[in-house]
């Protein structure tokens, strides 16, 4: 049985995201800030999921790409006078270039790759501290230029920044979906459990994994650059914080990292519920509740929230099909 056409659903979500959310929360800076933060995490989660689902690589070091992208963009605007939006793209490129240094880690598998790339994140943080003349050292960078006004939309406002990060995240989701739907995506998916079998039919698996690492780093770098210009401040502890790795991983796993929407849905659910509900209930240690929820999700539905909703919907509706199976691609 074929899945129902998704175009109306996608259009409804876009309408909701671009129109309804600004109309509903545009006057509430705190809520908009939380949504922006959730989308920031969601954007990294999409990049992380792309590497995990398509490259078959679990990364504990995406904070490295986030931090490099943030620093490159901030420095280009502060020291070289670049406009912010091109500098953000350059931040992504900087992160992609930085990821080249991590390519030797591709020879490692599973947890060994994850730990190696975590070490790279620490190395980049140390470099940011030590190269004080360029990066400002531990004191960081202040007064990073904010977003410009484009086509009458003030991107520096909460609503403008929200529209910008939303657009970036949607673009990354489109990239993820396009790669996954291509022949490359077929080969990448097949590589997880049968890498040798793919290689003997001509698939250059290491090259493809390296490419996914570069793409994922680029995506994360742009998100890092966005964050730097949004908060106008940067220091190594913040830019290379483990939170930029842990929260996106939790979001992607919670939402369903094998789906395109899952990481973003997961980020919105995880961050917004945590900040708006759990934090109110338990101001100190509220993350514990989320930890329990994540544990329950892994036990109950290891594929994440979105496949779970899909399965429940199909069970109460017209019956199952491929989309409802574990590991299904939404």
């Amino acid at each position, binding site marked *: 049985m074929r899945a129902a056409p998704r175009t109306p659903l996608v259009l409804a979500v876009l309408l909701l995201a671009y129109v309804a959310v600004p109309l509903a929360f545009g006057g509430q800076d705190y809520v908009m800030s939380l949504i922006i933060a959730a989308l920031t995490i969601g954007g990294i989660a999409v990049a992380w999921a792309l590497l995990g689902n398509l490259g078959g690589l679990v990364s504990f070091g995406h904070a490295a790409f986030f931090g490099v992208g943030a620093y490159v963009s901030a420095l280009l605007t502060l020291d070289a006078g670049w406009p912010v939006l091109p500098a953000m793209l350059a931040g992504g490129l900087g992160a992609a270039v930085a990821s080249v240094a991590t390519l030797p880690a591709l020879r490692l598998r599973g947890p060994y790759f994850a730990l190696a790339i975590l070490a790279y994140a620490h190395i980049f943080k140390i470099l940011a501290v030590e190269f004080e003349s360029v990066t400002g050292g531990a004191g960081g960078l202040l007064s990073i230029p904010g977003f410009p006004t484009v086509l009458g939309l003030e991107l520096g406002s909460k609503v403008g920044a929200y529209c910008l990060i939303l657009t970036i995240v949607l673009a990354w989701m489109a990239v993820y979906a396009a790669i996954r739907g291509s*022949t490359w995506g*077929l*080969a990448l*998916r*097949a590589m*997880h*459990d*049968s890498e*040798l*079998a*793919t*290689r*003997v*039919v*001509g*698939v*250059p*698996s290491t090259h493809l994994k390296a490419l996914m690492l570069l793409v994922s780093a680029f995506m994360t770098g742009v998100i890092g650059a966005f964050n730097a210009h949004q908060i106008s401040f940067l220091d190594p502890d913040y830019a290379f914080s483990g939170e930029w790795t842990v929260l996106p991983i939790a979001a992607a796993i919670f939402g369903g990292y094998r789906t395109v929407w899952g990481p973003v849905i997961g980020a919105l659910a995880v961050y917004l519920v945590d900040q708006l509900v759990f934090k109110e209930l338990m101001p100190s240690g509220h993350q514990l509740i989320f930890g329990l929820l994540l544990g329950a999700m892994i036990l109950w539905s290891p594929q994440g929230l979105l496949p779970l909703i899909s399965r429940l919907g199909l069970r109460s509706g017209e019956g199952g099909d491929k989309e409802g199976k574990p*590991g299904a691609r939404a």
Partner: protein
Amino acid sequence: MLALESVSMNFGGVAALSDVTLAVAEGETLGLVGPNGAGKTTLFNLISGVFPPSSGRIAFAGRPLGRAANWKRARQGIGRTFQIPQPLHELTVRENLTVAQRFGAGKRDEARLDEILELLDLADKQHVDAAHGLALTEQKALEVGKALAVEPRLLMLDEVLGGLETSAKRAFGGTLMTVKERFGLTMIVIEHDIETIRTLCPRAVVLNFGRIIADGTPEAVFRDPEVVRSYTGDAAA
């Protein structure tokens, strides 16, 4: 087509292949036989580039393969199957062939994929999950299909008939003959079943403890006392 010159392969202190010299002519079908552990699959792994030989040279189509990666060798026209079927996970039968064709042959030719699926009796299963929805015979057929989608000049079949019932083995053997003629292949067939080797292969090479101990027609090599000894042991010889 294929030339191995003094090829040896050691795993630590174990010599899996010792000083193997072998030539396979274009269009030939060579049977590769020998007891378990004789080095047959190791030979396939060396030719297909799963790992490089400890010493010696391998040339394909007149060019030395050197240390070319296995995916490059597939693109040069070397196709292979695995003794234990290795479908590409998460993909359907047709997607398995699509990946092999796009990457191995570097083109998109749906008509050829249709033909391969028909020849291997997989057309009805083309949209089935390759890793979980196929019977053993179909898994073996998919192994051959993936290798064919690469558009190989040399096809190496590793016990592709192993584990099949006699009637299925006979039918699949016939399919392999058809495939060879249709695509003009050179084939090396690893097989334990002597009757199958007699049927498919005008020439057989016997390996034992990593060395070639006989090379000739199946009738001749299976009468060779050393070959008989390698299968039955000294006492029976």
